């Protein structure tokens, strides 16, 4: 029987290349036609400290939805990895290590196979010492029968353009170690993981990159941001692609500057975006109120991590939902969406930019570290540039302005959306946008009737936004003993938990929210009423989605299944904590 579901873990010291090894191995598995989910776990430091990267690979058409707690193959780049993770190796599993670390002593009494080779020596012989990681991965590949050509192709991608010598040396290390390990250990599971030859082309990516790709394809022109994990990789992605794809990207002096630069750029007429995490978002909050009253479109990509303050800088959380919805003084319309997969991040970029312009409002895209840092294989077809249709909302051109007596930027309209004209583009398109309350022409007023009319006008945009929000996703049979209610990146693990429960004759289904504000209250009521037992599954300590559902529908959860230790949900965690 070929292996259809296997998990790897690569561990080592920070600075030892754990993440790049993990990402490279995940890409090799993807190219072999397997579906892959890889997630790093690292500490907030550049060197020292223990890092590891877990990969689950499955031969199936569907993407991998969740990691499992136990792994089949542990690749230990140092002794600490053996000590920390030996109990996470499934009985009968294997540990790959250098003979030099003498792991045998730590493994007595455990049902695991140690595959030890002089990896460093091999690396030095065919390349240099840093290639010991390549050697370790080659042992793992040989042990499960992943053809070495996929490793070689990833080496070519990663190093080929930079240095042929480094690529060739790595290839030599991989091929030599692979041959040696095959001869010495054979296939440790008696059969091969092999490869799925007829699999469609697949990408390997995380939420941040998927969002970045979608944004580049959707007319994004201006980005200002300040690095903050886990949003940094999106800022870096956009900066790295700016010159080639017609963007201006500014690493601002702080988040306050970043958001206000975006307001200025949006006002001047270009699609603008900022990227941040909770602490940086806190600093941006006054800026979003300026965007709101001046009715300038603004998109904020908010990747969550645990707080308060610095919290756990490199871990995950879903604890900023209520902040995203309620932040800032005053009252105004906004949209909050929480994409749950890479393909949803891809389309969310276009949708967020469109909604922001159509309703001249703030759109917060709420993601998290789990989604940002994971490497997920996805069919390439899910990322079709032609599927992203740019909609810019109401704009007046020169002919429209010529035909008008006077242009009023904040004209009172039935839907609350006043047509935009590019400021300075026409002698009539000269107007004031003010953070103070204003008249239809933009000039400041405190006239109570106008003040009320302007507030009403801006809030009418909520009605339009309500018509845009989508109902929650539903999965599983219609009538069940338990309904798991979730949002964001816990989608995959919750879905797997539903499958496991149904396979155990304990019927379960799932209601998953992607669009969170304006809250789809009617659709939520329809999806949730009649359920026998409701359990919210959330990565926070105060059950924020449950709070929102109760406030908006009056429906209460029977259990809050919460995780707030900085780690993402696994199926096992959900099943273990599910009551009743």
């Amino acid at each position, binding site marked *: 029987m070929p292996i259809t579901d296997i998990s790897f873990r690569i561990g080592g010291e920070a600075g030892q290349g754990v993440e790049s090894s993990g990402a490279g191995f995940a890409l090799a598995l993807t*190219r072999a036609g397997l579906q892959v989910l890889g997630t790093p776990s690292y500490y907030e430091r550049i060197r020292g400290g223990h890092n590891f990267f877990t990969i689950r690979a499955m031969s199936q058409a569907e993407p991998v939805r969740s990691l499992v707690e136990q792994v089949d193959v542990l690749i230990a780049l140092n002794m600490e990895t053996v000590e920390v993770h030996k109990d996470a190796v499934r009985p009968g599993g294997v540990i790959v290590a250098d003979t030099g670390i003498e792991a045998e002593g730590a493994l007595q009494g455990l049902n695991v196979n140690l595959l030890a080779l002089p990896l460093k020596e091999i690396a030095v012989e065919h390349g240099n010492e840093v290639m010991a990681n390549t050697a370790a991965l080659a042992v793992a590949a040989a042990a499960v029968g992943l053809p070495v050509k996929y490793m070689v192709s990833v080496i070519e991608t990663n190093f080929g353009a930079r240095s042929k010598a480094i690529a060739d040396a790595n290839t030599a290390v991989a091929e030599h170690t692979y041959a040696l390990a095959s001869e010495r250990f054979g296939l440790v599971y008696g059969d091969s993981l092999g490869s799925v030859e007829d699999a469609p*082309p*697949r*990408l*390997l990516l995380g939420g941040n990159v998927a969002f970045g*790709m979608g944004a*580049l*394809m959707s*007319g994004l*022109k*201006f980005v*200002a941001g300040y690095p903050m994990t886990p949003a940094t990789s999106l800022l870096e992605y956009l900066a790295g*692609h*700016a*010159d080639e*794809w*017609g*963007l*201006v990207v*500014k690493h*601002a*002096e*702080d988040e*306050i*500057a*970043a958001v*206000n*630069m975006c*307001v*200025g*750029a*949006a*006002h*001047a*007429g*270009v699609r*603008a975006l900022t990227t941040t995490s909770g602490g940086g978002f806190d600093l941006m909050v*006054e*800026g979003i109120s*300026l965007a709101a009253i*001046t009715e300038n479109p603004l998109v904020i990509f908010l990747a969550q991590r645990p707080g308060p303050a610095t919290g756990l800088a490199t871990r995950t959380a879903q604890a900023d939902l209520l902040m995203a919805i309620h932040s800032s003084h005053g009252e105004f319309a906004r949209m909050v969406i929480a994409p749950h997969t890479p393909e949803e991040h891809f389309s969310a970029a276009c949708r967020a930019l469109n909604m922001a312009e159509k309703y001249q409002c703030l759109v917060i895209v709420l993601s998290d570290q789990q989604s940002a840092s994971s490497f997920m294989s996805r069919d*390439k077809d899910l*990322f079709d*540039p*032609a599927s992203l249709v*740019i909609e810019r909302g109401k704009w007046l051109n020169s002919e429209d302005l010529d035909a008008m007596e006077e242009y009023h930027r904040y004209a009172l309209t039935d839907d609350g959306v006043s047509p935009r004209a590019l*400021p*300075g*583009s*026409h*002698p009539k398109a*000269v107007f*004031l*946008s*003010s*953070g*103070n309350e204003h008249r239809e022409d*933009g*000039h*400041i007023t405190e006239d109570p009737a106008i003040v009320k009319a302007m507030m009403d006008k801006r809030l009418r945009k909520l009605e339009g936004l309500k018509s845009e929000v989508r109902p929650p996703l539903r999965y599983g049979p219609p009538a069940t003993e338990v309904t798991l209610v979730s949002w964001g990146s816990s989608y995959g693990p919750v879905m797997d938990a539903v499958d496991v429960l149904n396979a155990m004759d304990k019927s379960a289904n799932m209601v998953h929210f992607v669009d969170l504000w304006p809250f789809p209250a009617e659709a939520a009521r329809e999806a949730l009423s009649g359920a026998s037992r409701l359990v919210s599954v959330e990565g926070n300590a105060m059950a924020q989605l449950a709070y929102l559902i109760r406030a908006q529908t009056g429906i209460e959860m029977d259990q809050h299944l919460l995780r707030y230790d900085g780690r993402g949900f696994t199926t096992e965690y959900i099943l273990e904590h599910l009551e009743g």
Partner: protein
Amino acid sequence: MATVQDYAVDVRPTWCPGCGDFGIWNALKRAFVQAGYAPEDIFMVTGVGCGSKQNDYMRINGLHTLHGRSLAVATGVRLANTGRKVIAVHGDGDGYGEGGNHFLHTVRRNMGFVDLVENNQVYGLTRGQVSPTSRLGFRSSTSPTGSLDRPINPLALALSQGATFVARGLSLDLPQLQYLITEALKHRGYALIDVMQVCVSYNRAMGYDWYRERAYKVEEQEGYDSSDRATAMAKALEYPGSDRIPTGILFRTEDVPAYEEGIATLQAGPLVDQPLRTRPLEDYEALLSEHL
């Protein structure tokens, strides 16, 4: 050719009679006309304060923002539309206090816009509190026993961070101020004009006569070289600190490119004029290939 009347709106200023903001208001409009700009050619980004209402009292592409944030907003406007002139106008509390970090970074970046700071050394709109430029010992409602903070020296600070155009004007000297604004509008990079102005309500000790007795023009000094940063720094350090207030263009160089000149994307023209997708849709497949 635009005229001052083109900048007129139906909104009447709410400044106190005798406020320095009137002089700045007139100098701005006259300078725009002198420099040949129509209202649609200029973006005026202001903060919050009495003087930040300049664009409420003018017909201009105006953006009246938040306290302290006008430089950040102006940066966004400038980067999005390099086809238009941008001028930031705000007070001393706004620019040197709340927005101090933006000031520092806008200077070192050499962002290509004019920054006119209405420096009356007091908070006017909130009714007379100590400001970052108030003198040591300044008594106000929030410093009842006298300020313990020494005043900031904005010109020296800007010069120390590589500013490429540093000037000081007076709200009471309209012709000089008009000249300074006109020259600043010609500058390729960041141009700071610190305008010392009277506040007739909350800083009466520093009235018109107080300034007349102390101010002098650097260009009237024999051999003054405004291209020498060290000379300019020596002048900048005269005030605060002594009873002599140098005015005029203390320093200017056109040898340093503005920030936006270094941005590859903007070589193709103003961002706002570029197509939303700069390449045919099929080209975007290349982005997918990076992750295959």
